[in-house]
């Protein structure tokens, strides 16, 4: 494999984690809930997946188990923030602490072992023969297609081409108006926050079953937070969210190539790139394109609980 193919192949693989988690976060934020628990959900998904494939040899079962655990934690978070209207920032941070702590506690007996079963690469006939992109995109594990093609397109269609999507965006922009129009605000919020949390945990499963693939303490390493930042960068849209995940996969891949080729930079500095890159990406656009602000704006009611009686 030549350099460019290798670079993009790793970029697609590495970026999948961020892309999937960012897609989940898009769902939650579009209905007006900031879910800062993504980091903890990913940790829980990651350890659930490892524990599942240690018991049974089916990676897909591990992925589904992670989705289920994510939905469970997400439902608890959503119940607190949507129905009880507790502070979203505090609940999110709490979810991150709980998920990270719990996953590390459970993970001690799985630490360092490679995953028993992983998502294998599948070569798609014909398409995988294309130059560069063929090897890079079309000979990946099955989740990569889900994350970069099926899910973003499906979510884009759902959000922007259906009546239901219009309703759920209304819930995020102006819950009072949505409520007056007969849209069940809290039910929609609950459902999409839960679904988004499931995807975040799924991203954790992808991490330990397709990308790394093993569990070690701190394996999530801030990817949940990067995903939250990517959603801002992507302007709360699914297709750009998946693409910005890819962009970060590229930065990660660059670090790997650097290490493999023995660039005279310590690996620790290469590992800093995604974090520094994220910070740059959420600061620079705001400074550079003032006009973009309206298009990229967050849902108007983001972070605000909805009280029907206090208006």
């Amino acid at each position, binding site marked *: 494999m030549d350099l460019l193919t290798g670079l993009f192949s790793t970029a697609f693989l590495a970026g999948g984690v961020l892309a999937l988690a960012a897609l989940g976060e898009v769902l939650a934020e579009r209905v007006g809930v900031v879910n800062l628990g993504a980091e903890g959900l990913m940790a829980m998904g990651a350890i659930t997946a490892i524990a599942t494939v240690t018991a049974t040899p089916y990676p897909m079962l591990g992925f589904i188990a992670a989705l289920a655990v994510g939905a469970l934690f997400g439902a608890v978070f959503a119940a607190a923030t949507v129905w009880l209207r507790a502070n979203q*920032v505090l*609940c999110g941070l*709490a979810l991150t602490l709980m998920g990270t702590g719990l996953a590390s506690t459970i993970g001690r007996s799985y630490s360092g072992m490679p995953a028993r079963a992983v998502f294998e690469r599948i070569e798609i006939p014909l398409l995988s023969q294309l130059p560069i992109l063929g090897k890079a995109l079309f000979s990946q594990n099955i989740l990569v297609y889900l994350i970069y093609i099926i899910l973003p397109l499906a979510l884009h269609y759902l959000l922007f081409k259906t009546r239901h999507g219009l309703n759920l965006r209304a819930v995020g922009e102006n819950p009072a108006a949505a409520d007056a129009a007969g849209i069940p605000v809290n039910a929609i919020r609950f459902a999409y926050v839960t679904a988004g949390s499931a995807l975040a945990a799924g991203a954790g499963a992808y991490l330990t079953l397709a990308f790394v693939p093993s569990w070690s303490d701190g394996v999530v390493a801030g990817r949940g937070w990067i995903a939250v930042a990517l959603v801002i960068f992507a302007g709360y849209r699914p297709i750009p969210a998946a693409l910005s995940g890819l962009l970060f996969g590229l930065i990660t891949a660059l670090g790997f190539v650097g290490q493999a080729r023995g660039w005279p930079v310590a690996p620790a500095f290469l590992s800093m790139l995604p974090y520094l890159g994220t910070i740059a990406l959420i600061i620079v656009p705001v400074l550079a394109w003032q006009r973009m602000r309206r298009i990229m704006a967050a849902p108007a009611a983001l972070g605000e609980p909805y009280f029907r009686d206090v208006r």
Partner: protein
Amino acid sequence: MVAGLRLQRLPSAHPGIALAARGAAIFLALLLASIVLEITGAAPLELGAQVISATFGSTYGIEDLCLLLIPLLMTGLAVAVGQQIGAWNIGAEGQFYAGAFSATAIGLFVPGPTIVILPLMFIAGAAGGVIWILVPTLARAYAGVNELITTLLLNFVAALMVYYVSTGPWRDRVGMSNSATPRVKAEIPEFWGLVHWGLPLGVLMAIGFALVLSYSKWGYEVRLSGSNPSAAKYAGIPVRRHIITVMLLSGMVAGIAGMFEIAGTVHRLQGGISNNFGYLGIMVAVLARNSCIGVIFSAALMALILNAGIILQTQGLTTSAVLAITGLILFLTAIGDELAHYRITRIKI
């Protein structure tokens, strides 16, 4: 609901009820953790008794507790100070690392008597914390970029940096350890047993912040800018300047915490030196409802919980279990805070 009674939401929670909600949250979280322990085959009551006897049964136990209290007090204060103006400094962890890093740099490479080196380390630690929060601060003040994510992401950068120097260029080439720097010679003197002067200094800092915020014009302007930025701006208060000052002060306090940890407690820079103190500091500030005086008490409580986790390590519990329990307390506190807004009123039918 019973006829004639209805729930009414008040615009702000009654402080007494909010405090009670915190107590209930801590109790419930510990109860849940005990139930989990019971199910997994441990005996929570025995473990609890063991923790209490190990902590309060000897002066060593209390000294250990105080050594944990110092960093928690400082990082909690850092978060609480930021909250005065509505800024979420989730990066106390990173600023702690940066403070420890710069203090160690002075301690290792600048020769001189302790009386000169210690103040220099203090200044370096404070500066390290300030530098670490500088970019998030400017981004928040001038571009409106949410400081929550930017401060947090820098935690990972700081951790990587400290890991790199303590296992690489600065590592101890003489001792057995490959993952820490040599011992920093300048040490903060002890004032009681193993407990160094960082404790009274930290308490003084908390009281100082509380006084300035409550009784000075600056403090009033800061609190007003925090609770209602647009009203403050309309009243001619330089909100942006206050945001910058307060956030930098917040980073400074966390940096000093890192310096204290190096010069007072650990004496070597190593990966993981921050021990989650930055994240636990969020918890400390939330439990104190962002009161600088309250931070002293909630830090003591967190120190107790963290210490319990450390004592129970021999029983198979880990600090990550403590982190999970802390998260649970935070979660229940957040719910309790909202519920504290409600009161039941009687209505005439």
